[in-house]
């Protein structure tokens, strides 16, 4: 086994876990915390939203349950449909998180499918990188767009496996393979994973990691699913590193010896 030192490198920082998780859609903060602990994730996404004004002082906050001192926060631009909204959101996130630079950029193009608007995404990435952000970018599985985003300077390319929240799994492994083959920065599948085998397949394709939220949060037992995902990511990664056998229609070489058969 040679995988002990296998770590994920993003924007100059090493991570043990290749599973990145969102913090949305959970029943409560306690369930969020337990699921994230079970997932083993070190990088967790958060959204930036208006604070409740005039609420009670003691109201619990996500930050109390998953403190930024323990996790690498990945503020996202979920719900942004324009360059301006996305850039504005992440500037606020940087202020909020004391100069934190690592961000997840997503610029959506359609409220029904949540499909990314890659044209706006490219423009926003350019602005953010000029301002010193380390941009992990959500995009379609178009290899040319992925290449352009890398050329602009994104520190990780995160193509969808299928649409956000759909749980449809990996619909186009071939495109993902092309993206992975050409990229010099980490490629992570973001969105569409539904269950553990989807995550394992992404890792077997050679993805450096997987980002997911709904697959865990919307499972009947989110904490158990988080644990399943952790194992699937590790298994998929090891299988990728181990190098799978070649596929063939049939084999004339059985696994048991042909010598010494009783007669």
């Amino acid at each position: 086994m040679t995988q002990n030192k296998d770590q994920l490198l993003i924007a100059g920082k090493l991570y043990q876990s290749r599973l990145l998780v969102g913090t949305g859609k959970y029943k409560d903060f306690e369930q969020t915390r337990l699921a994230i602990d079970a997932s083993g994730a070190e990088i967790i996404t958060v959204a930036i939203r208006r604070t409740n004004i005039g609420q009670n002082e003691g109201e619990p906050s996500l930050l109390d349950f998953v403190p930024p001192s323990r996790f690498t926060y990945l503020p996202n631009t979920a719900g942004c449909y324009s360059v301006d909204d996305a850039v504005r959101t992440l500037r606020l996130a940087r202020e909020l998180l004391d100069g934190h630079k690592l961000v997840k950029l997503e610029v959506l193009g359609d409220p029904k499918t949540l499909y990314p608007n890659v044209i706006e995404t490219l423009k926003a990435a350019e602005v953010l990188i000029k301002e010193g952000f380390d941009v992990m970018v959500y995009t379609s599985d178009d290899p040319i767009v992925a290449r352009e985003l890398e050329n602009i300077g994104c520190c990780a390319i995160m193509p969808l496996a299928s649409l956000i929240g759909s749980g449809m799994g990996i619909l186009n492994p071939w495109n993902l393979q092309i993206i992975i083959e050409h990229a010099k920065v980490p490629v992570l599948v973001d969105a569409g994973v539904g269950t553990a085998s989807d995550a394992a397949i992404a890792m077997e394709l050679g993805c450096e990691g997987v980002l997911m939220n709904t697959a865990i949060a919307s499972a009947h037992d989110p904490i158990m699913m988080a644990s399943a995902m952790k194992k699937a990511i590790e298994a998929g990664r090891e299988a990728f590193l181990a190098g799978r056998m070649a596929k063939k229609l049939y084999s004339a070489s059985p696994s048991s010896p042909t010598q010494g058969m009783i007669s």
Partner: protein
Amino acid sequence: MQLRINGNIKSFDDSTMTVEGLVIKLNLLGKRIAIEKNGMIISKSEFQNITLQDGDQLEIVGAVGGG
């Protein structure tokens, strides 16, 4: 003075108030927030120096669960 905070008009008796003063009034002191005044981000170190004016538009944001 009247301020538009997160899209809602709020009235205050004070005629002058700093951003820090507002943060205290809203029970947000010590909370992890970021504030934008009329489209410009105000850094935390400036909260006590920046004075608010009638009609200012403020966005006060925090981190919430999201994917």
